[in-house]
């Protein structure tokens, strides 16, 4: 358990650095730290499927960001130095509402099941009967392609739509 907390602390620190630092390349690198920590966390909670996807997507994302940054300017000119006079009110409002939401969340989340103890009966059914009913030893594949195949089909449609959207935005011909 302790290593998950350490990872969470490292991710928080890296996220703050990614927002606040002025050098955009360093910002992209610390964003990569967050992503790889998520991958390590997936391995720690025994979800290697997600870890593979996370690692590959994270590498691609960091490469894209680095390629873009190396072609443009290196520094972020939009970061302000210190807190301005008119910036005080949002900070106070942030702390008030943050405290309020935290207190409410502590009350609301008290009844949730503990970590690693799901109350959903259907997950237990998948684990117990998955191999007999589908024949797949990888339980994740059995769930996403057999029990929840319809969701996966929706996911494929979402991917297709996103490709269409990118091509529509980037088109040259027909744009006025």
């Amino acid at each position, binding site marked *: 358990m302790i290593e998950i907390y350490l990872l969470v602390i490292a991710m928080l620190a890296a996220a703050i650095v990614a927002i606040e630092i002025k050098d955009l390349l360093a910002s992209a690198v610390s964003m990569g730290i967050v992503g790889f920590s998520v991958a390590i966390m997936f391995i720690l909670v025994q979800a290697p499927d997600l870890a*593979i996807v996370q690692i590959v997507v994270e590498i691609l994302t960091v490469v894209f960001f680095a390629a873009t940054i190396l072609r443009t300017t290196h520094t972020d000119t939009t970061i302000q130095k210190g807190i301005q006079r008119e910036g005080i009110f949002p900070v106070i409002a942030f702390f008030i509402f943050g405290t309020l939401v935290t207190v409410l969340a502590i009350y609301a989340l008290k009844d949730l099941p503990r970590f690693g103890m799901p109350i959903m009966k259907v997950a237990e059914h998948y684990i117990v009967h998955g191999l007999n009913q589908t024949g*797949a*030893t*990888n339980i994740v594949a059995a769930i996403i*392609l057999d029990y929840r195949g319809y969701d996966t089909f929706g996911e494929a449609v979402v991917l297709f739509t*996103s490709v269409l959207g*990118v091509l529509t935005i980037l088109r040259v011909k027909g744009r006025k």
Partner: protein
Amino acid sequence: MKGMSVIVKTISRILAGFIFLYGSYIILHGHLTPGGGFAGGVIIAASFILLVLSFGAAEIKEKSSYTFSSIFESLGGLMFLILALLGLFAGTFFFTNIISKGAPLKLLSAGIIPLANIAIGMKVGAGLLSIFLALAASHYIMKE
């Protein structure tokens, strides 16, 4: 987009095939070991993206590979839909596993799940690659 140095080109020419092989392994063994169509498709797309990044975009090559990736993406989506409809045609429900399940831990087992993994791998890999090509080489591809 011009290419990188000769060291990068040589190394990525050697590595791209192995990355493609690893992605194929992840897809084909998706029903046995961790992985599956989504992860393997992204890895296969990464092998092509590595080649495009290191060798640079040339007009004719980009246009033809863009056409190929569009065709493969549509093929993957259609294959997945046909697999889902097979259950309907066989007289049961959408997405029924109608092929025999076979022995567990064999490569040819689990009915339509390996086929669906291949379809999703084609779709994800080709879709990601065509997004990348459209972003990186939009000058060449979108011109006509």
